[in-house]
Each structure stands twice: as structure tokens, then as C-alpha cells.
């Protein structure tokens, strides 16, 4: 196990340092150590914030996906397949339309409110239906998300915001500078909280009656899960945009390798999310250097492929 940790750490350091070095403006490690103000400026206002934003968003969304899987009891459940992200986008739109001059905290609160309500609606609905078939949840969830996002587009058309809307939805880390990404730090305490509740989520994922039998308040655990997921997704949607499929594929990849114990999976899920987003971001910056391809496009090509593989692999649906 020690060796695995070492390799994992080495990969992270390698990717992180290449992310720091990659860009139009050049500087070397020697410049930083020599105290060159220009190099330090580039590092602290652009490169380092970008790296941190990538790590926080990648870890946050992946953890959100893991929590969602447990509370919906479905391995294809994630913020992007349960309407959470689409409701967050809707909330963002409303926040910018009606409360444009308020502080960003108000915006975050509104986005959070919409995503909690939207997700809660969906989960209550699922609890009433009790599907046997695993693919039904993502299928209905994606459709639900589509309906919500067509409402968002409708409002965007009404207020001439279509172009801004597309720049908000397309996730891109290029615009991250120090001073505009700090909301993402919310992912840290939230993920720790998710870790704290991990065993209870695992119990809830076995089923309502089991959870009740061992003395847990099932509905309260589900509610806590929804709140955690909504906090993680709304901060990412507000700062970065929509990163499709990330929350879905990362927990599944991790559980392919190390099973389903949530307390053990959670750190690895966060780690894999970071690595995946970091690698895709570097790729997006390299393909048409010095321009960039938004990370959402790269992730959705990769994520879509992996998602289809996961569906086909799922023997119970054959």
C-alpha cells in the first residue's frame, strides 16, 4: 500500500508542476527561487490559482458524485444525472438577473437554494417510484435536467443572455485568477464532512429499512447528503461552469479498483478527480497551444465514452 501512495503522489506532483509551468508566459524554477518579481507575479495571480481551482473543483465534484450514488442507491447517479447541475445553472441565471448588484455570497446562496430544491424534488420522486432497473435513474434524471435547462435557455432568450449563458455553462479554467476562485475552498470542509458521514451514507445506500434497523434517521441522512452535494456542485457551477460526467465516472472508476467501502473510497475518489481534471486541463491547453480548448469538451468526450462503457459492462441490463 505504501508504494501505491508513493506512485500516486509522484503522479500528482508531476501533473501539478507541468500545469504550473504550462502557458504562454515562460518562467523557470530558478527565476522563482531568485525572486524575480515578474515570475512570482505570474505564479501567484494566474498559475497557482488555476492549479488550486482545478484541484478543488475536480475533488469536489467527484466527492459529490460519490455521495449522490449512496443516497440515491444507484451507481449512475451523479450531480449531472439528477438535475442538480441544471438547477444550479438555473439558479445562477436567476441570481444574475434579479440580484446582479448583490455580493457573490448572495449569488452562491441562491444557486445553492435552487440546487437543493431541484435535487430534493427528484429524490423524493425516485423514492416514491422505487425502480428496479439501474438505467432508469440516469435516464429520467438526464431528461429532467434537459427540461430544466430548456427553461434556463428560455429565460436567457427573453433577456438576451444566450451568449453569456454559453460562456457560463462551458467550463474553462482559463479565466481563473487570484481573487475570483476562492469560493471553491468550500469544497474542503464539505468533503471532510462527507468523510465524517461516510459510514452513515454507506448504511443508507443499503436501503431505507436497513438504515432504520440500525437506528439511523434515514430521511435526515439523505437530506444531509443532498445539502453536501448541492454545496459542492453550486460552487463549481458558479466559478467554473458545468463539467459533465465527472461526478459520474470518477466514483465508478475508483470502485472498479478498490471496491465499495465509502470511507476508503472517498480520498481516492477525490484524488482521481483531481488527476483526471488536471490531465484533461493540460491536454486542453496543449492541443491548440497557445489557445485553449475548454475542459468541459475534453471531459465530456472522455466521460461519455467511459459512461457508455460502464453501461455496456453492467450485466444486469443485458
Amino acid at each position, binding site marked *: 500500500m505504501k508504494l501505491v501512495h508513493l506512485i500516486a503522489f509522484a503522479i500528482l506532483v508531476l501533473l501539478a508542476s507541468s500545469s504550473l509551468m504550462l502557458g504562454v508566459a515562460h518562467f523557470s524554477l530558478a527565476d522563482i527561487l531568485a525572486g524575480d518579481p515578474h515570475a512570482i507575479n505570474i505564479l501567484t495571480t494566474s498559475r497557482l490559482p488555476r492549479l488550486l481551482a482545478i484541484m478543488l473543483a475536480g475533488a469536489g465534484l467527484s466527492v459529490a458524485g460519490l455521495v449522490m450514488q449512496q443516497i440515491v442507491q444507484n451507481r449512475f447517479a451523479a450531480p449531472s444525472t439528477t438535475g442538480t447541475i441544471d438547477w444550479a445553472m438555473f439558479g445562477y441565471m436567476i441570481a444574475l438577473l434579479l440580484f446582479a448588484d448583490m455580493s457573490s455570497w448572495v449569488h452562491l446562496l441562491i444557486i445553492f437554494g435552487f440546487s437543493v430544491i431541484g435535487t430534493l424534488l427528484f429524490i423524493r420522486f425516485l423514492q416514491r417510484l422505487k425502480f428496479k432497473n439501474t*438505467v432508469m435513474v440516469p*435516464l*429520467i434524471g438526464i431528461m429532467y435536467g434537459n427540461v430544466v435547462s430548456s427553461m434556463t435557455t428560455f429565460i436567457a432568450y427573453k433577456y438576451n443572455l444566450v451568449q453569456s449563458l454559453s460562456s457560463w455553462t462551458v467550463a474553462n479554467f482559463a479565466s481563473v485568477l487570484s481573487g475570483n476562485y476562492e469560493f471553491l475552498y468550500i469544497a474542503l470542509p464539505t468533503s471532510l464532512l462527507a468523510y465524517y458521514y461516510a459510514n452513515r451514507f454507506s448504511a443508507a445506500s443499503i436501503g431505507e429499512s436497513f438504515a432504520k434497523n440500525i437506528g439511523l434517521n434515514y430521511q435526515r441522512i439523505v437530506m444531509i447528503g443532498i445539502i453536501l452535494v448541492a454545496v459542492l456542485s453550486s460552487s463549481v457551477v458558479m466559478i467554473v461552469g458545468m463539467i459533465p460526467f465527472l461526478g459520474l465516472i470518477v466514483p465508478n472508476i475508483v470502485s472498479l479498483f478498490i471496491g465499495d467501502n465509502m470511507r476508503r473510497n472517498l480520498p481516492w475518489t477525490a484524488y482521481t478527480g483531481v488527476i483526471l481534471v488536471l490531465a484533461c486541463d493540460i491536454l486542453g491547453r496543449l492541443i491548440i497551444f497557445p489557445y485553449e480548448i475548454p475542459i468541459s469538451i475534453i471531459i465530456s468526450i472522455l466521460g461519455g465514452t467511459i459512461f*457508455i462503457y460502464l453501461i455496456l459492462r453492467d450485466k444486469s441490463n443485458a
Partner: protein
Amino acid sequence: MRDSLKLILLSMLAFAICALFVVKGLTLDNYQFFLSRRIPKILAIVLAAIAIASSSLIFQTITANRILTPSILGFDSLYVMIQVLLVAIFGGFSSIIIDTKINFLFSTATMTLCAMTLFHFYFKGRQRNIFTLLLIGIVLSSLFSSVTGFFTMVIDPDEFTFIENAMFASFNNINAELVYWCIIPLLLCATYLFRLANKLDVMWLGNENAKSLGVDTHKLTMKIMFIITLMVSISTALIGPVLFFGLIVVALTRQLFSHYQHRFLLLASAILSIVLLAGGQWIVENVFGFDTTISVIINFLGGGYFLFLLMKYKFD
């Protein structure tokens, strides 16, 4: 009300809407300009409406279900992706891209090839659960759109602006030359479908039954798939992808009419489709004053209806 009476009323309605589209605000001074803009537009809507309705209807027949349509399974986005890939491979200035006819022929040929492969992937081999198919279709369709997005970013910006109009069709951006070129293949497809209608009726009884009644189901499926591909290419080239429209039209046709014969259903769904698409576009232009697009409305209503269908399917 009898089915034939309903059909007659519906065709009158379709005709009235189309007429409304063409003649509104027409005067002796401006008719030349207005007609030159409006006739291709209404023609494009009518042709696309027919293509979408018929292709969705026969797709449901050969796949024996009531919720799958070619666009939900990603065939529309496949066409758009092929267009962008062609530009990426051949460059924006080659005749394959610029010449409308050659472009249409070439991309339809490529599309047929890809669509056949996709169809094979969906329906051959292991018999898959219909919900799994739907989910794969939706994910694939978003995958195709992402690949499209990727290549539009990678393409040289100069080339991109040059080909943008040809590539991304919409209701307000209709390629007039292409419209007239689509009439012939669409007519051929429709006639051919009418000739196959009897076999399709048998096919609707189920694959096994059709076989025992002497229909070569494999051959029929291949023929129909070819026609569907052509029709999807035509409608997407004319007005772009409209995800749920085919689903709504076919489901409404089955609700409105109690017929099971394809000859009748093909005709009825085509007319209903014209009413809905042209009527919807008219409402968008006149009631909403272009404040929205018809695809937003279709996505909203169609998505809701699709959810409803899924529930119903599940509990039946």
C-alpha cells in the same frame, strides 16, 4: 369523429398555416423579395416535417417500440458531427464543403455508412433492454455534440466562419439551394415507403410474426434503415437537429388516429408534423416575437412528454 374526417380537417389546417406564412403582409411592392425569402423557408419546414415524422414512425416499427426515435438515439447529432469532421479533414475550401449538392451527397453517403454501424451496435448481438438503449443513445448523442464542439474549436477560425452557415442549419438560417435539391430524394423515399407500407404493417406485428408470414425482416430492416438515414440527413441538413420532435409527432398521431395501417399513419403523421412545426414556428415569430426558438419549446414540451412516456412504459 372518423379518422378520414380528422385527416381532412388537419390537412386544411396545415394548408392554412402554410398560406398564412407565405402571404402575411404581402403587397404588390414587396412580394418579390418576401416570396423569395419565404417560399424556401416554408418549403424547408414542410420537407423537414415530413422527413422527421416518417423516419420516426418507421423507426418505431422496425425496432418494435413506441419511445425510440432516430434523433433520441443520436442520428441527428451524428450528421452534424460528420459535417464538422468533413471540414476538419478536407478543409473549408474544398468543393465537398462549399458545393451544396456535392456536400449533401457526400455527407449523406458517409452518414449512411456510420448510421448502419451505429444501428448494428444498437440492435444486433445481445438483445438489450430498451431503457439501456435509450440511455446509451442519449449519452452518445451528447458525445457526438462534444466531438462537434471539439472540432469547431480546432478548425481554423477563417474556415469556420466561411462554413458556419452551411453547417449549422436552423429555422432562420435556411439554405435555399439545398431546399430545392431535397425535394427529389424526399419524394423518392416517400414513394418507396408507400410501396413498402404493407410489409411494414406486418412488421408491426412483431419480428417473429412477420417472419412466419413470409417477410424477409432482415432485408426489410436494412432497406428501412437506409431510408431513415436519408430522411434524417435531409431534415438535419434543412433545419438542424430537433431532439424530441419526432417522438411528439408520432405519439400524437397514434393518440389521434385509431388506424394501424402504415399508408394512413405515414400520411397522417406527415400532415400533423407540418401543422405542429409550421404552427410552432409561426407562434414563435408572432406571439413570442422571436424571443425564443422553437427548439427550446420542443425540448421543454418534448422532454416533459418523454418523462411521462417513460413512467407510463414502466408501469404498463
